[in-house]
Every structure is written in C-alpha cells, then in structure tokens.
C-alpha cells in the first residue's frame, strides 16, 4: 500500500509534530511519502518529502492507494492542503472541532469568494447565519455565531479520522456510506533526553520550589489568567513555593494581560511567560516541571497535542473536564470544571504542591496509563487497519458519489427532487449491481 500524507511540517504548528510521528508509525507497515509546502522552519524527517505546490508532482497522486489530508483551523498551515483536497478525494484527519476561522479566511480572503462562503453557511446553518457572515466580512458585525463549519472538509473525504469520541459525532455526517474513526494520537517523536536536576538549575528553579508549567501557543481558551488568579487563592505555604511558567508565546496583548493580572496580585515574581522556544528548550521546561496545567474552555480541538506531549513525563496534569480530557480514567488526570475562574484550579493545585508523594503517585499512574493508550506502534496498526476498511467500503462510496454526475446541468429548483429520485432508484438496485 502507498500513502500520500499531506501535512504541514512547520515547527510553528503542533500538528506537524503529531503528524510526523503518525506518518512514521504508519510507514513501519506501508509506504508513506510526505507532501507539504516546504518552509524554512520545517521539522526534519527521514521520509521522502514532496512539494505539493508543484503541479507536475501532483500528477503522481493517482499512483497512491490513499491520499491522507491533515486538516486544522490554521489557514497559514492548511490552505494549500485544502486546495489539493478539493480536487482529489482522500482520507481526512480532522484535528480541530471547528474550521470556522479557516473557512472564513480561505474563501472570503484568500480566494476572494465571499459569496461561496456565505452560501455554505446558508446551506449548512440557515440564512440568518449567512447574513451575519456577510455583515462580518464588511466589518458591520463582529461574529457569525458559534458554527463549526467543518462540513467542507467532509464532502470530498473518502473517510475521516479524529482523535476523540466527542469529535467523532461532528464528522459522522454520512453514516452508512462514509467511514469515520476515532484513533488516539500517538506519542510524538522522542524528546532529547535531558537531565532534570541540571535543567532545573539552568532554568533558575531551586530544589524547594514547585514548578507548574503550561505550554503551547497562548490563547484565551487556555485559561492563563485564571491560572494566575488561582495562585493567589493558594494557602500561603503553597503560594510561597510555587513558580508558574508558560513555556510558549502568543499575542503580546495576551501576554501583557496575563502579566498584568500577576502584577495586580503581587505575583509577578512567581510567573514567567517564556515566549516561543526551541524544541530543546521546551523539553527542558517540561522535564523540569513538577505539575502541568493544561486547560481548555472552550475545547475546539479533536484532541490535545500538548497533553500528549506532557504525558511522556511522570508528572501530574491538571486539565479541564471536557472533550478529549474527559476520556481519561478518574485516577489519572486531575480534572476541574471548564469554566472555573480560579477556585477549582487552586483546589486541585494545593495538595499537589504540598505533597511530593502525591505528585509522584498521580504522575506515574497517569504516565503508565498513557504508555499503553498512545503507543505509536498501536497507532500505526489501527490506522492501516482503518485504511483497509476504507478500501473495502470504497466501491459503495464511489457508487453513491457517481449518482451526482450531471446534477450541475439540472435547474437548481429541481436538484433536490432529482437527488431523491436517484437515491431511491439506487436503494432499489440489487446490491450485486452496485458493489
């Protein structure tokens, strides 16, 4: 089996780290070529890398058994992949539960086709949402409402893979004809081994301090300000020992807001936001951490790449009780209500800060659980098994899609009726004639 694996490789997106790990796991069982838009900060790989911008190379796609598209909500990273998907059906790996930002930028800005964007919204969500979208593009409104608009990632898919059961319900749009599957993300490529005690020293963390780390790109949904607020609510003996480090960067306004919160609470000497880090420096912070905090509200990702990364360490993790995070057993991740403003975060952190033994036992138990669930070989086997099932179901999906031939020549007001007629006829056809 030959697989064309479309993905960004840029170190600026977490999807690249996951995707390379997944592609390598799959390549242990079948042939995998990576297709990407080469960028200066691309992660290195031993797999063959092909340039998706080259039309001559794209003419090779029919030679693959499966084309796999990694899709996420960042137009910078996925617009070129979406371009190829629109003309070549394939298996979609859907990383985010919403594509609203991607679709708005892709159609209304990059393709200057706001009418198509408006019509998609009208078709999927009704005229009111579409009218708001038009007003938003004209800067007369600020929001289209909470619609995921990931449907355009499905209609040309031969199958869809997500990474959590709650994301599965969003993509199971054509039950009975298009396969969907939730496969847990695999662990990322192994981090460079680092010395915990040496790293703590180099990072300026003393032995009696308790280091709480969040990482990844900062956004409102990651609840940094609420975590800072929680530090102020800790018992004095815990507050005096804690250091909270955000190992990552974000928009300067977000960083300033979190630091202003810390200054206002007299905690600015306890809080550090590092800015974007190299992989080596990032793993120095992760390896030095005593506790991780990984919150989401709202939760828009199919799973959490940063959580998978944290799970490689024997360190307890405080998370929001939502989506992918809620799929763990009770005695592993430490869960808090997603909308908490600080009280529950503080209540979860306090015992972990004060009791070293508790940190070790929870961290090791969580790591042991994760080691079996997110094993890379397991991912490879599940993914290839899924592709085999997609092969088996392909003739039926192709037969259904073929029913749409010629619809473009029919007056729009008669299309719905014609589709119903063709489907009815198809269902009355003996199976042997369509398989």
């Amino acid at each position: 089996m030959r697989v064309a694996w479309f993905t960004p490789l840029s170190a600026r997106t977490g999807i690249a780290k996951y995707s390379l790990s997944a592609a390598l796991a799959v390549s242990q069982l079948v042939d995998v070529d990576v297709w990407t838009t080469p960028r200066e900060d691309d992660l290195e790989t031993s797999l063959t890398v092909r340039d998706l911008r080259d039309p001559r190379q794209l003419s090779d796609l029919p030679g693959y058994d499966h084309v796999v598209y990694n899709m996420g909500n960042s137009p910078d990273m996925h617009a070129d992949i979406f371009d190829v998907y629109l003309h070549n059906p394939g298996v979609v790996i859907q990383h985010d539960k919403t594509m609203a930002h991607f679709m708005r930028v892709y159609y209304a800005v990059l393709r200057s086709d706001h009418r198509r964007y408006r019509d998609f919204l009208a078709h999927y969500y009704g005229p009111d949402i579409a009218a708001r979208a038009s007003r938003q593009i004209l800067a007369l409104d600020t929001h289209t409402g909470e619609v995921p608009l990931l449907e355009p990632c499905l209609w040309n898919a031969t199958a869809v893979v997500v990474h959590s059961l709650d994301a599965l319900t969003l993509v199971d749009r054509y039950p009975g004809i298009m396969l969907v599957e939730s496969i847990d993300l695999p662990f990322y490529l192994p981090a460079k081994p680092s010395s915990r005690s040496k790293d703590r020293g180099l990072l300026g963390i003393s032995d009696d301090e308790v280091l709480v780390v969040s990482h990844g790109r900062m956004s409102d949904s990651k609840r940094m300000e609420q975590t800072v607020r929680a530090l102020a609510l800790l018992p004095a003996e815990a507050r005096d020992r804690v250091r909270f480090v955000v190992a990552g960067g974000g928009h300067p306004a977000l960083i300033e807001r979190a630091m202003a919160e810390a200054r206002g609470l007299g905690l600015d000497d306890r809080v550090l936001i590092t800015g974007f880090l190299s992989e080596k420096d990032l793993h120095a912070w992760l390896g030095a951490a005593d506790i991780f905090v990984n919150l989401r509200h709202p939760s828009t990702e199919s799973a959490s790449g940063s959580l998978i990364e944290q799970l490689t360490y024997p360190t307890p993790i405080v998370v929001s009780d939502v989506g992918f995070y809620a799929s763990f057993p009770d005695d592993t991740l430490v869960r808090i209500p997603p909308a908490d403003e600080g009280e529950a975060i503080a209540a979860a952190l306090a015992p972990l800060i004060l009791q070293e033994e508790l940190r070790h036992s929870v961290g090791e138990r969580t790591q042991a659980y994760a080691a079996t669930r997110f094993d890379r070989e397991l991912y490879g086997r599940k993914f290839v098994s899924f592709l085999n099932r997609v092969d088996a179901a392909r003739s039926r999906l192709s037969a259904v899609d073929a029913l749409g031939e010629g619809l473009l020549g029919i007056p729009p007001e008669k299309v719905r009726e014609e589709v119903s007629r063709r489907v009815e006829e198809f269902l009355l056809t003996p199976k042997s004639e369509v398989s």
Partner: protein
Amino acid sequence: MSHGTENTLRESMERRLLERYVSTADDKARSAFVGTQGSADWKAVAASAALGLWPRIKAIPVLGPAVYQVFTWVRKSGA
C-alpha cells in the same frame, strides 16, 4: 435492512450528494439552490460603500449638502 437503517442511509446519501452539488455548482445555481439569490445583503454592501464614500462627498461644497438633503428626504418618506 430495517426501515430505520434504510431511512438513515437514504438521508446520508442525499446529504452527501446535495453537499457535493453545493460545493461545485456555479455562483448563480448555488445561490438559487441555497436561497441566497437576491438576498438582502446588497443593502449591507451599499451601506458599507456609502459610509466609505460619504466623507469625500461631504467635502464637496454644493454636492455634499444636496446629498444629505436627498438622504434625509428618502429616510423620512420611507422610500
């Protein structure tokens, strides 16, 4: 196949075919199909253009006040 399963399958197939149609139809056919043809967002476009141009029109000595008076008349007459 039970009736429930068959209905689900029928809905699935119809949904897939209609979504593929919407994604590939040209502007005219698509907007007629989804019901946005002749929709009211031209008002938003016109309003946006007028708002953008108004500071320049206003600066023209005779035309500016005249446009304003016409606008006021249109608004009061409910046209």
